[in-house]
């Protein structure tokens, strides 16, 4: 009797494993069969469902902070200028602008015929209202901290608006991407109104947000009639949902996920536009010693990390600037430290740690690429006697303890830019900067930064910024790794996906193919 029971169990196991194999067998067959060639012709109209990993944190463009929210809102709102896919700032709500010689007065001429989604024309009053709203200091701090240098926003005539600054700033245009909203409009959170190529249609918390084509868009109109951003909370279900057809597109896949999508999808490869590094608390023992930090740099090999976590995808960076910001990215620092365990050990000996030390790496547990990176680093550092403990914590705890509290030894994270200026990446390393969570302190850096931001000559300014990048590399402020690969799966029914050098998902360029 007992034996029969076991036999039944065995049969069951076989049945189950056959069922499971059935699914994976399917995968193997298709792997060789498909070539992601697109043969169809573009057609107008249609709809797409895009998977996103998190619900939006706010529909108010001035209050939204999550990168995943901004990239969606890009389709609804526009600023006076907006970034294009090559990293340039192009005119949007404004048709032209002028910057005064001393870089203290910015004058914008509004474009004719730009309408809000509610049908009203955009006026100079709306622009003034939007900028003033972001510069408002009645709550202590403006929404956009850079706006603290705005002296006044003046309406010169119906179509012309002037922004006066208290100090020269040649990069201020990069901040003029701030969304223009209707004057006095209070319902942004529930019924957003902007000027972008898509109009907000509906939102269901934790379910989706639906956008419709803006038929009266001033510029090149979108191809698709409808875009639904659908929340896929369980990362393990992304591939299943793509294959099953409940979503047509998904951003930031892991290379393992991308490898599974062989049939019916093409994978677009770009970068995430951030600087992933082992960020070091320059105040914490023994990382306050420059030689120790340099030793870590010599011990870590970014190429090895990319090979281990993403099949070699990703772009190496050697300082706090990512390749997407072409104008400012200095390639010469990319290979500033080549892996050399002997040199690393020697540096540690000179610094007084011949036997290595204990290092704690704090990492946000939900960010798999960062967790994986920390694990590879831990193995690499073993070779120079540094004993790593990885401490995974929740993102909210990371924000509070590591970022705001600066209570950490080291952390793996990606730091991105909020706009297209070099300043957005480099300002945080000024000694007393609020965002200087690694406590980097260097007098020369502070001096050059001050000079850079007040330099009016663009070429000279770029030189100075590159000098700053050099200081960060030489002083080994952090162990710089890479700009992570961004793998986007797009169903073969669609094409036209474009990468931007910022967190942007431009849905207006996407079209259906026949």
């Amino acid at each position, binding site marked *: 009797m007992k034996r029969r029971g076991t036999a039944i169990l065995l049969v069951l196991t076989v049945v189950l494993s056959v*069922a499971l194999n059935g*699914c994976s067998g399917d995968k193997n067959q298709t792997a060789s069969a498909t070539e992601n060639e697109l043969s169809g012709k573009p057609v107008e109209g249609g709809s797409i469902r895009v998977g996103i990993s998190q*619900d939006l944190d706010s529909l108010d463009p001035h209050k939204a902070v999550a990168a995943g929210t901004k990239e969606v809102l890009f389709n609804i709102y526009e600023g006076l200028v907006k970034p294009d896919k090559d990293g340039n700032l192009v005119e949007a709500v404004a048709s032209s602008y002028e910057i005064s010689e001393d870089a203290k007065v910015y004058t914008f001429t509004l474009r004719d015929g730009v309408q809000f989604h509610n049908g009203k024309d955009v006026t100079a009053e709306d622009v003034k209202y939007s900028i003033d709203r972001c510069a408002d200091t009645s709550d202590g701090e403006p929404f956009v901290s850079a706006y603290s240098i705005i002296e006044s926003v003046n309406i010169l005539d119906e179509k012309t608006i002037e922004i006066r600054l208290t100090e020269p700033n040649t990069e201020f245009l990069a901040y003029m991407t701030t969304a223009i909203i209707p004057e006095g409009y209070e319902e942004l959170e529930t019924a957003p109104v902007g000027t972008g190529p898509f109009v907000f249609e509906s939102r269901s*918390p934790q379910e989706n947000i639906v956008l419709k084509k803006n038929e009266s868009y001033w510029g090149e109109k979108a191809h698709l009639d409808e875009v639904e951003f659908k929340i896929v909370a369980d990362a393990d279900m992304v591939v299943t949902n793509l294959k099953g057809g*409940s979503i047509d597109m998904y951003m930031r896949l892991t290379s393992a996920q991308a490898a599974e999508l062989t049939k019916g999808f093409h994978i677009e490869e770009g970068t995430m536009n951030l600087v992933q590094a082992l960020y070091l608390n320059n105040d914490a023992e023994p990382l306050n010693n420059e030689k120790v930090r340099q030793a870590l740099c010599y011990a870590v090999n970014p190429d090895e990390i990319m090979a281990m976590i993403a099949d070699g995808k990703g772009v190496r960076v050697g300082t706090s600037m990512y390749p997407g910001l072409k104008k400012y990215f200095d390639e010469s620092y990319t290979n500033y430290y080549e892996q050399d365990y002997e040199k690393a050990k020697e540096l540690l000996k000179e610094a007084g740690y011949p036997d290595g030390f204990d290092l704690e790496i704090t990492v946000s547990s939900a960010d798999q690429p960062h967790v994986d990176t920390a694990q590879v680093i831990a193995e690499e550092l073993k070779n120079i006697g540094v004993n790593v403990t990885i401490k995974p914590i929740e993102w909210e705890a990371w924000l509070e303890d590591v970022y705001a509290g600066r209570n950490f030894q080291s952390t793996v994270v990606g730091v991105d830019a909020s706009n297209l200026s070099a300043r957005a990446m480099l300002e945080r390393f000024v000694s007393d900067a*609020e965002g200087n969570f690694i406590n980097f302190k260097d007098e020369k850096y502070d001096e050059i930064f001050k000079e850079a931001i007040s330099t009016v000559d663009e070429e000279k300014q770029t030189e100075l910024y590159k000098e700053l990048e050099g200081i960060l590399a030489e002083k080994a402020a952090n162990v710089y790794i890479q700009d992570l690969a961004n793998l986007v799966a797009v169903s073969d029914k669609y094409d036209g996906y474009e990468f931007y050098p910022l967190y942007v998902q431009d849905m207006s360029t996407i079209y259906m193919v026949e």
Partner: protein
Amino acid sequence: MKFIIKKITGLIIALLIVSILAFLAFEIIPGDPARTILGTEATEAKVEALRDEMGLNRPLTVRYGEWVKNFVSGDMGTSYSYQIPVKELIADKIPITVTMTVMSFLFIVLLSIPLGVLCVYYENHMLDRIFLALNQVLMSVPPFFIGMLLTVLFGLVFHFFTPGGYISYTENLAGFLGYLLLPSLAIALPKAAMTMKMLRSSMLDQLGQDYVRTAKSRGNGPWRVLFVHVFKNGFLPVITFLGVMIADVIANSIVIEQVFGIPGLGRTLISSISKRDYPVVEAVIVLIAIVILVTNAVVDLLYRKLDKRIEI
């Protein structure tokens, strides 16, 4: 009457304890709602200002007292992350989770009772053994895994349903119910297996009793004996079990909602916890607690009705 008053007082005390614990939990875990809302670009001053605005700088006891006062008067506050009243947010989610819970429960009852009785009838026969083995397998597999298995099997192999293709009940009720079938089944299977096993052993227990022999000797057929006499007594302990199961079903629906991409209460709860959206979390937790406590009270009541010997 006395019984009901006793139950209600117990319920209120339990709810107070649950809500206090939920409040305390957020005091202890790291993370600040104001900072979570403002992100990395925020300055200290900005975070402080927002904390003030949200009233987070007031002492815990004041905040709790205010929350209780508002909750009793039907005001659950405003969600931090959605800027809409919590009541409105949750009202849209409740039908989803309730439907799923009811469907799972129906699956449990409809699967476990007939199969349980069948196994008793065919005790030690092939059929009984197959089900026992299957039971073992199902009980040891967590629902979320069954969920994934069902998704792959029915979604990608047989194409019976679209994984992640949730349809809102406001859009298409039939589609909504259809989509919930598999997730409900995923929750129900392990529980049905347990219930069936329990019913089987409880009924087998009864089969050895004297009254069964009497019933048989009176000329009742074996099915009649099973259904009319044995089932009635054997089912009593299972009722308690089913009552407790409701709590389990709700707990599992939280996980299953993630797997199947269903925007119900569970998913709202999880995302609100990670966003430190206290008003939503508090409301959902208290709601779930109410459901569980009320079901337990109903089970007690039912139990007393069915078996007059029991005093509560």
